């Protein structure tokens, strides 16, 4: 006859709730009971695991990241609309929803429908008074607010539709038809309701003919606009048009469009951008790519010419600066721009641009860049050398921090998964723990990659095709350039296993 272990008594003993007599009785019982001995042993193992978990340091959340996400919210919750939440049904929204406010209702309804189809346990009986439940609530869509200015520096003008231009105020509302102008040595940033952000460089003139959430169109008459586009749904679009007929069409990315009467340039720092010339696809740009076109000015512009044509030099070129995590900022004409975002600067062709690069300690070094082409790139190596990071590998190596490495590895998991899935076809029970040893070159590319150690649980060891595939995949990874003159060694443990193995 089987015997159920005395779990309740064991728990009570572990929590010190048993009397001395009860403890003695339990001890006597456990000595002669295999089931209880096994349960007690399991209890001790669980306590060991629990202790290990107590010593585990949880990942730290970064306030800066949260603050950026809050700023990208359609509405500032504490200030706008929250007071209306109680009167709204407490809908459950999909996670990480940063879609525009007017989509919230539909998304909440869809989420509610989806959740209603999920298997769930019977609802708990409401035996007790319920305090106010912090359900994940919608923000009341009191009013469509499609975007607003989040930074106004210097001479920034705003006009609604055909209305007159007037000085722009911080938080000024953007609507379809809004037009923005920045004067010399001025800048403006705007946040759109879907979380996208645009930054107008000095001397920029643009219009926002469509800003209805699903379709964002920016018409750039002149100047330069940096774009950070939130991920778009299939039905949504985000396009920047120039008066010369070029269109940059994106689906969640970071890119810069620069245009003048003679040139149009697009440089992409993240994601993919399609460039269209009068609706015809002429280029598809990936991260690091740039596009430049020279064109004769049209006799009749398709929209109003720049507000101050005299500010536009007749022959403009550009300088493209890469994203540089080792520097704090680029400084151009006494304006600082975050170096980690990269920068495109317009300047007269044939001139020399005085560029400042502020290092991690706040020290600025200057570099003169001749503007010899429509988009003159400045190499990362040149900038690192300027910062003095080229000669000392130690200083540079510190820049390749764990978070940067983690980010690259996360991005490479999908390709590694494909390697593993292919091997699973011939080795269905394959499960392995491997230690990858990589050598990251100063450029960020992987120079060498080997499987330094492995512990496989499949018979016959790690399959050759899997090893080769893993090494090939890892060698294709590109890390942020650590700089310096010497490579950096990394060790990355990887655990390959299937979900079936997890559930066994």
């Amino acid at each position, binding site marked *: 006859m089987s015997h159920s272990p005395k779990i309740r008594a064991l728990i009570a003993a572990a929590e010190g709730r048993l009397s001395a007599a009860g403890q003695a009785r339990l001890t006597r019982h456990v000595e002669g009971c295999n089931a209880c001995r096994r349960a007690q042993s399991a209890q001790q193992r669980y306590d060991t695991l629990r202790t290990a978990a107590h010593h585990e340091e949880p990942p730290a*959340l970064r306030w800066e990241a949260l603050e950026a996400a809050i700023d990208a919210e359609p509405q500032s919750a504490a200030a706008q609309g929250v007071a209306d*939440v109680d009167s709204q049904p407490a809908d459950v929204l999909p996670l990480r929803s940063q879609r525009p406010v007017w989509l919230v209702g539909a998304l909440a309804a869809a989420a509610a429908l989806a959740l209603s189809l999920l298997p769930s346990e019977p609802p*708990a009986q409401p035996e007790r008074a319920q305090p*106010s439940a912090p359900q994940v609530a919608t923000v009341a869509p009191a009013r469509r607010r499609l975007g607003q200015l989040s930074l106004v520096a210097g001479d920034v003008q705003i006009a609604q539709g055909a209305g007159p231009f007037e000085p722009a105020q911080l938080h000024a509302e953007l609507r379809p038809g809004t037009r923005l102008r920045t004067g010399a040595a001025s800048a403006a940033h705007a946040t759109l309701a879907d979380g996208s952000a645009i930054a107008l460089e000095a001397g920029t003139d643009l219009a926002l003919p469509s800003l209805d959430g699903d379709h964002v169109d920016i018409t750039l008459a002149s100047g330069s606009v940096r774009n950070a586009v939130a991920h778009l749904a299939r039905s949504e679009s985000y396009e920047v048009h120039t008066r010369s007929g070029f269109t940059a069409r994106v689906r969640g990315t970071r890119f810069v469009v620069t245009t003048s009467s003679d040139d149009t340039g697009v440089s992409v720092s993240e994601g993919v951008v399609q460039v269209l010339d009068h609706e015809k696809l002429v280029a598809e740009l990936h991260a690091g790519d740039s596009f430049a076109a020279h064109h004769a000015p049209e006799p009749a512009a398709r929209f109003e010419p720049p507000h101050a044509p005299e500010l536009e030099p007749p022959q403009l070129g550009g300088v493209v600066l890469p994203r540089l995590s080792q520097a704090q900022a680029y400084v151009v004409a006494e304006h600082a721009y975050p170096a980690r975002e990269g920068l495109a600067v317009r300047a007269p062709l044939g001139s020399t641009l005085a560029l400042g690069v502020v290092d991690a300690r706040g020290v600025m070094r200057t570099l003169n860049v001749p503007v010899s082409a429509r988009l003159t790139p400045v190499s990362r190596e040149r900038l690192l050398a300027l910062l003095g990071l080229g000669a000392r590998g130690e200083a540079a190596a510190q820049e390749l921090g764990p978070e940067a490495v983690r980010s690259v*590895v*996360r991005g490479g*998991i999908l390709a590694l998964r494909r390697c593993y899935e292919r091997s699973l076809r011939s080795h269905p029970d394959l499960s392995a723990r491997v230690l990858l040893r990589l050598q990251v070159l100063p450029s960020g590319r992987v120079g060498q990659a080997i499987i330094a150690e492995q512990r496989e649980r499949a018979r016959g060891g790690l399959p050759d095709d899997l090893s080769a595939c893993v090494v090939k995949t890892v060698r294709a990874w590109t890390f942020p350039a650590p700089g310096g003159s010497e490579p950096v*060694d990394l060790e990355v*443990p990887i655990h*390959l296993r299937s979900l079936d193995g997890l559930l066994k």
Partner: protein
Amino acid sequence: MSDPLAGDQLLIEAAQRGDRVAFRKLFEAHSGQVTRLLCRLIPRVDVEDVGQEVFLHVHRSLGTFRGDARFSTWLYRLTLNIARMHLRKQRSRPSLTLTPDEEGGPLERSESETPLSLSERGERLEALSRLLDRLSEKKREALVLHDFQGLSAEEIADVVEAPVMTVRTRLFYARKELYAALSEEEALAGIERSVGTLPGRPAPRPEPTLSPSKGRSQ
């Protein structure tokens, strides 16, 4: 349980009025509590993103907090809601997993640990996650709040909005199922034995995880 925010009503009120500094202080006071809870409920690799999501929702919903419950109770409840939603989304994803240990980055380790011994340490935490995964959502939440967050059954009852006796019952059956699973878990027992019988910590390795190489060939 001590409520770290028991005396912070002013902070909450200020944050409700849109005071960003006050909200930051709330975030700093409670982010550890949230991530520790999430570590036992969802895959560690997702903790950072979901933790941020929790505080985004706190920011959106703080206006609805009326002080009927303690802030920590309210925050735990919100965290559980968001963790549940995250897990439901996860279930619809492909069934194959490939997990770099400790999120795939270079691991922080003491000098006396090798990468693989560190990996084994991570394996014990993975084993714990695997065990907790076997429990139903409600039992797991009760157990985690009790055993890992240090909440009493009464406090858990407030968080999960269930009677105290229900919570106690969930705790009992959660433990019973865990002990049964642990008895069966040969692999885990093997790990525990091997770790337990090691004569000492492994010898230190000369090379750190992250270092500039000196022209050393691999």
